[in-house]
């Protein structure tokens, strides 16, 4: 910093990239990992989700959630949108999306699947007990089976990662979230990822977690376990308190922002050929 004429120091320049996040949020991890993979420096601001900062609420008034990325002061929200923005805004960095339009569409499709189907199903396992949990586990297995089939027979067949030899957008999105599977298994005592039932998914996850940038980004298993145990206790207490047999409705939103959407999945509407 240069000293100005009156002897005081010039204020530090605004960082080009600033990330608002939460240490236990897999959505935050996605952005941190993407920035690291691209070699982009950024300032990080930890948010207390129980007491959100004025800045976060101002930058993301619609959802009031992390992560929010500021680039030259302009806010971006929603992790998958942020990741695609990084590809667009920093074209000289390592790309996250493949260049082929069909593979791009497929990557986007499975990202949406991760957030729309797999994530909520895993959250539901974590937030429930008994019969409801059994049903949630069944859904997780159904979803993992679809991913396994895609790895075995689909366009990603034979690849080490969805992105090819190196980690890409879909690996980041699916991977930052999948590390919760082992944690939830430990805390609930329920088996989610059986290496025999889902060998390709299991191998992919192991390879993903072994990447240097991933190890730098994901918190230690001990911290995750402690967090998950606390969350599980709270969710079960809420369910018991609600007295309706385990359905938690919307748990304490600040805690739930963090890992996956822990609200049980909405009842499936009557199947229609027409999605209108």
């Amino acid at each position, binding site marked *: 910093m240069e000293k100005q004429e009156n002897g005081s120091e010039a204020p530090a320049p605004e960082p080009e990239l600033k990330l608002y996040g939460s240490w236990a949020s897999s959505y935050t991890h996605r952005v941190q990992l993407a920035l690291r993979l691209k070699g982009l420096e950024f300032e990080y601001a930890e948010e207390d989700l129980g007491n959100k900062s004025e800045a976060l609420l101002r930058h993301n008034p*619609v959802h009031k959630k992390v992560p929010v990325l500021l*680039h030259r002061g*302009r806010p*971006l*929200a*929603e992790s998958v*949108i*942020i990741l*695609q*923005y990084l590809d*667009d*805004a920093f074209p000289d960095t390592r790309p996250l999306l493949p260049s082929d*339009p*069909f593979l*791009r*569409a*497929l990557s*986007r*499709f499975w990202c*949406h*699947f991760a957030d729309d189907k797999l994530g909520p199903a895993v959250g539901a396992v974590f937030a429930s007990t008994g019969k409801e949990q059994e049903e949630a586990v069944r859904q997780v297995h159904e979803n993992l089976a*679809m991913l396994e089939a895609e790895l075995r027979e689909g366009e990603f067949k034979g690849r080490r990662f969805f992105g090819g030899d190196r980690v890409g957008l879909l690996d980041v999105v699916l991977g930052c979230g999948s590390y919760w599977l082992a944690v939830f298994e430990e805390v609930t005592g329920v088996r989610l990822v059986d290496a025999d039932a889902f060998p390709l998914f299991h191998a992919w996850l192991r390879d993903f977690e072994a990447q240097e940038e991933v190890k730098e980004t994901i918190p230690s298993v001990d911290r995750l376990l402690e967090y998950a145990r606390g969350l599980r206790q709270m969710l079960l207490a809420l369910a018991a308190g609600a007295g309706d047999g385990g359905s938690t409705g919307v748990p304490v939103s600040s805690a739930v922002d963090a890992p996956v959407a822990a609200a049980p999945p909405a009842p499936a*509407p*009557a*199947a*229609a*050929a*027409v*999605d*209108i």
Partner: protein
Amino acid sequence: MSGAGEPEVRLLGSWASPFVLRVMVALRLKVVEYEMQQETLGNKSELLLRSNPVHKKIPVLLHNGKPISESLIIVQYIDEIWASTPAILPSDPYRRAVERFWGEYIGDKFSQVIRVLRGSVPGDKDKMAGEMFTALQYLEEAFVSCSQGKQYFGGDSISYLDIAAGSHLAWIKAVEKISGIKLLDEARFPNLFAWADRFCAHPAVVDVMPDPDKLVEFTVKHAAMCAPK
């Protein structure tokens, strides 16, 4: 290379679906020929089930036989494959992110509200109307900022966000009739109100935007089909 007689571009869809409409508008904007296969309610085709085994839903675009699912993903695919003008996604990265953000939020919100207001799923209609007004207020502000005084969210030509939001306009009008609640009110949302008419009259839209009265009929017919015996 498609086989003899196989269309290069085939769309599995329905005239009534706003999600399918998004794809049709994108194809028409790019002047891409396509063949539409109408899917029937309650009787999904073998091709649909094979092409979208994960969700079993329309729209599905088959390009030289390869399936792409999810309407906004298909729209981006169309933009990337047929990269000639007009561009659907803006070229500026930040504007792109802004359109993607609103496209997702508005799409989710509009569908949710419409489902409740037409009676497909149970819910609090007044609460939904309230949520709709909030969403429309955000969209009104987004329109002013994105359009920069021009005709559409995309400026002079329709863009991703025009398509994502505009595709729901017929259903919005239909549920206004069904519920008796005025949603896209001219006094409250003057810019959106004017944009809505322009979007519906756009050459890429006008021939495929359904008639709200037909959607009301469709709702009545569907409700009768799903009524408990």
